[in-house]
């Protein structure tokens, strides 16, 4: 596989990572996502990592970068479907994945995106606070 498919779901982009992320693949995904956010005007990105057995510091940094890039393009990123074993390993390794928002599954991720979006329009001040905590 030379590129990871990006699916459009309304104004949300859905990426499901099923294979080990190598440097090239990760960079490609980053570029693809940025392009797609701009071309579709998406307001949210959901990255599903149910298929990942291992999340190391490289993958963590890559996810954080994607989140930061999307944020600049006004799209909130949620990483969903992290496996328990992956979470335990990350905690044991002391990699807190800063700047990444997570949800248990795609459904909850979509709900969280909607809630975040609604909060942003309802109370702009509060969403500003959220940003400073997240980054």
């Amino acid at each position, binding site marked *: 596989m030379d590129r990871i498919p990006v699916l459009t779901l309304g104004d949300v982009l859905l990426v499901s990572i099923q294979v080990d992320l190598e440097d090239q693949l990760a960079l490609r995904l980053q570029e693809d996502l940025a392009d797609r956010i701009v071309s579709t005007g998406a307001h949210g990105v959901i990255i599903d990592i149910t298929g990942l057995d291992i999340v190391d510091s490289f993958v963590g940094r890559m996810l954080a970068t994607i989140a930061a890039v999307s944020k600049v393009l006004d799209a909130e990123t*949620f*990483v*969903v479907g*992290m*496996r*328990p074993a992956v*979470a*335990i390993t*990350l*905690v*044991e390794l002391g990699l*807190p*994945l800063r700047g990444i*928002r*997570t*949800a*248990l*599954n795609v*459904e*909850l*991720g979509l709900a*969280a995106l909607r809630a975040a979006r609604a909060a942003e329009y309802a109370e702009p001040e509060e969403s500003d606070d959220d940003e400073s905590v997240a980054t």
Partner: protein
Amino acid sequence: METNTALRLAAVLADRQDAVVEAWSDAVRETLRGRLTRAELDRQLADLYTLLRTLLESGSSSLGRPDAADLRSMLSDLSHARARQGFSVSETAISVFALKAAFYRAAGDDDHVSKADFAAFSLFIDDLGLHTVETYVAARDSIITEQSQQLMELSTPVVKLWDGVVAVPLIGTLDSARSQIVMERLLQALVDTGSPYAILDITGVPAVDTQVAQHILKTVVAAQLMGAQCIISGIRPQIAQTIVSLGIEFGEIVTKANLSDALQYALRSLGTDIGKRAPRGAVI
């Protein structure tokens, strides 16, 4: 043991069977103090005696030989049963060792048995005794392992409190192994039920030291990584003081005094409203 000695001993054992078994049974029964019925004990010892005699009749006294397989398994069964019934090591071993005295008492006046024969017989019984003790210890070990596993399973249930809320009521001291299991079970339950809220209730945890706190914090952070929020409830006053005096930072982790408050918090965050129904027949 030489073949001749074995055959001689086998002959004497066959000759004096009733007397030896009776003396043996009497000696063993004294130590058992009624925990085994007389009939059962007599049957066990008679079986054992027969197997032992058969082995000696084959001209050998080595427990390692294939002929001795029956005797070995009989001894193993006996010590397994004794271990499960709660007998001590010496109480189990005496069942075998008592045969020496019984044999001497019942066959001591026999001219066919020399002192050397007695010594050889004694060594043979020692072998049997050692085998019994070894299997007893192995049986005990397996019982202990089984029990600790059962305890582990019993003590870490993950319960679903509400749609979207799971809880783990922790009871007893938390060590690394247990908290690892708690962590894995809780995270798995989050995935399985798709619950964004988890409550760790530590009402039943007698003490919290830095290590336990570390484990709890790790669980909470792991849950957060997966996109769920963990609430800690049931912190007792003394534990709260310990946590503060140890300088453990709970940071942004939500803590509540009891499970009810934690559930209420989770429900409110989920947007679920719970209110009292208007009393029946109330005039509005």
